[in-house]
């Protein structure tokens, strides 16, 4: 089966101009491929570049060299070289990302935050809000919180808002950066179920899961991310 997302020779380094041009290589020669219905867990020590790789896959970090090929609208696009407008379109329709932290406009209600990506994909507003409510309930976020902005929520509650926002649209490719880091056991089980359902529906998933129980429950295989040897 054609991979939904793959990289070829992906490399990434940072140049810190404010620190005298310090050059920090983080990733090199990354060849990753994820097929529809498959979940790949990035695996490696802290600081090896797992989150950097995730951010490159989403286009949040620019690739230094190599290609990031996403199956989008039945064709391949190279996110490393694509026009920003094409990246935005790919994110709207194909590529979802659940980051560790929620970043939203202040004062917008939780239900609207979760519904927004569905609405921009063309789901009618009422239907999007209904799906948002259902998913928030499934993630055990009490109804009384749905109308409030998440700024004052606990870390675990904010993470569940983020998860609902990421899972609601049904993206064909989903990136999960520690989706259960702030959750208790009951809520972890809920997230495992969500991930496995998304896989069953054909989603290709790349994740960072520090929690061994979660990793074993969802990952089909591990992908090693090793620290780049210092070139200097």
């Amino acid at each position, binding site marked *: 089966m054609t991979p939904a997302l793959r990289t070829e020779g992906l490399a990434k380094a940072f140049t810190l101009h404010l620190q005298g041009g310090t050059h920090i290589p983080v990733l090199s020669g990354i060849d990753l491929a994820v097929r529809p219905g498959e979940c790949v867990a990035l695996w490696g020590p802290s600081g090896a570049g797992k989150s950097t790789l995730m951010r490159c896959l989403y286009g*949040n970090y620019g690739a230094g060299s190599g290609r990031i090929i996403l199956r989008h609208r039945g064709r391949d696009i190279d996110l490393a070289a694509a026009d920003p407008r094409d990246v935005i379109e790919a994110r709207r329709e194909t590529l979802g990302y659940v980051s560790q932290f929620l970043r939203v406009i202040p004062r917008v209600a939780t239900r609207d935050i979760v519904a927004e990506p569905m609405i921009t994909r063309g789901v009618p507003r009422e239907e999007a809000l209904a799906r948002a409510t259902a998913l928030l309930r499934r993630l055990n976020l009490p109804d009384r919180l749905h109308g409030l902005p998440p700024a004052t929520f606990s870390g675990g509650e904010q993470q569940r808002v983020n998860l609902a926002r990421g899972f609601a649209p049904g993206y064909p490719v989903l990136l999960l950066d520690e989706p259960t880091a702030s959750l208790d056991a009951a809520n972890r089980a809920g997230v495992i179920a969500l991930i496995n359902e998304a896989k069953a529906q054909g989603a290709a998933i790349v994740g960072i899961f520090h929690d061994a129980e979660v990793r074993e429950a969802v990952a089909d295989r591990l992908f090693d991310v090793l620290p780049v040897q210092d070139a200097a």
Partner: protein
Amino acid sequence: MTAPLLAAEGLTLRFGAIPALLDVAIDVAEGEVVAIVGESGSGKTTLLRVLSGMMTPDAGTVRWLGDDVHAMGEAARRRLMRTAWGFVHQNPRDGLRLAVSAGGNVGERLMAVGARHYGNIRAEALSWLAKVEIDGHRIDDLPRTFSGGMQQRLQIARTLVTRPRLVFMDEPTGGLDVSVQARLLDLIRSLSRELGLSVLIVTHDIAAARLLADRILVMRRGRVVEQGLTDRVLDDPQHPYTQLLVSSVLAA
């Protein structure tokens, strides 16, 4: 990709020996929010004025749907500003008529594009006041009795009532309290999404640019030093100046 609505290239403008714009290129597509950020004096407001035809560049062209904005003549440009374009000024008093009621400020733009039925105009004005969260009871009050945040929302209603395709915004949250800024950002974002507006927004507020803009251009000393996808430019800045700009922002 479809052709951009607004496309500019080679824009250069000097004030005496001081270069305000140096070889700037920018385009804006349908439904896109583009932010221009940079420090004071970087040329961002000048760029907005040149793009909207308020100032003429020494070199370079600005095209709206293919037509040269600076060659079309004053009358055609004013018509554009009344119909397809809108301009939201940093200071709402520059965009409002202070001696005219709130409803009049909104209705006037409608009349300028041909609306004549008083009842319809008033109904439309009321509906726009509601959209920008101004109490309908204030429709006959003068804008000078409004707070700064209300004036700014009134200016936005006045600008959007004629359904422009592109809105230029110059530091729209500039002089406002932080509490009012967030509400205004949400308003600009939801209205632009709902109406499919293109927005070109000048701001020195990096956090506002992150929340609103699809793409961002970073200006310094009249040049665009970096541009691209908003979150990529802000999270993985390449140019030394962008790195300085981003690292100087307090985390919020």
